[in-house]
């Protein structure tokens, strides 16, 4: 039962990543592209968590935690750069 649910969730996350990629390529404005990248990072975290469950290995969560932090900081840095023309003022 868990195997079926796990495969369903993996398929959903993969499809969600494809949708994000479509919005990243298409996105009419820069805000859309930043948003798509941010969502891609969150979906990548979801993928890492699912792989950790599938492999029964809890070492992957260090990577997920690091990715969550790096993704947040990079989103804020990109927004800050667009808003102010500089990152650290």
């Amino acid at each position, binding site marked *: *039962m*868990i195997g*079926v*649910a*796990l495969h*369903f*969730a*993996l*398929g*959903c*996350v993969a*499809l*969600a*990543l494809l*949708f*994000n990629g*479509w*919005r990243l390529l298409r996105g*009419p*404005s*820069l*805000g*859309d592209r*930043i*948003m*798509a990248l*941010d*969502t891609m990072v*969150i*979906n990548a*975290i*979801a993928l890492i*968590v*699912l792989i*950790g*469950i599938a492999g*029964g290995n*809890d070492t992957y*969560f*260090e990577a*997920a*935690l690091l990715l*969550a*932090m790096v993704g*947040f900081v990079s*989103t*804020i840095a990109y*927004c*800050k750069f*667009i*808003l102010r023309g500089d990152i650290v*003022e």
Partner: protein
Amino acid sequence: MLADLLIAALLLLGGGFVLIGSWGLVRLRSTMERLHGPTKATTLGLGALLVASVVFFQAKLGTWTAHELLISLFLFITAPISANMIAKVHMHRLRTGAVSEPASIAGPPPRPANGSDWATFEAPHSGTPTSTANS
């Protein structure tokens, strides 16, 4: 058995909400509306997946890990902040005319009260914690 059921239900919920969030990113018309999908649905979906993994490692392998809760706490704090920054980027680019907003389902947002403009367009007031102008 009960744990299996719980893990499977949480995995289905999480996968479904992650997919719905990204589908909202594709489907909705204007940038401000698209902001709703990833910030709410995807965050909830990832939270469900993380709870599923907590239950999985507790029930199947007998190891108690709290890293997942740490990740979901971190995400619940950071998702509104990044959404706020993206909305600010979009509003500033709209005001400078770099982008044009397509007609949205909800219509344009209501103006702020008493004839003032959005706070992000104003210069920082001196003496407030957000002011970095004179420091």
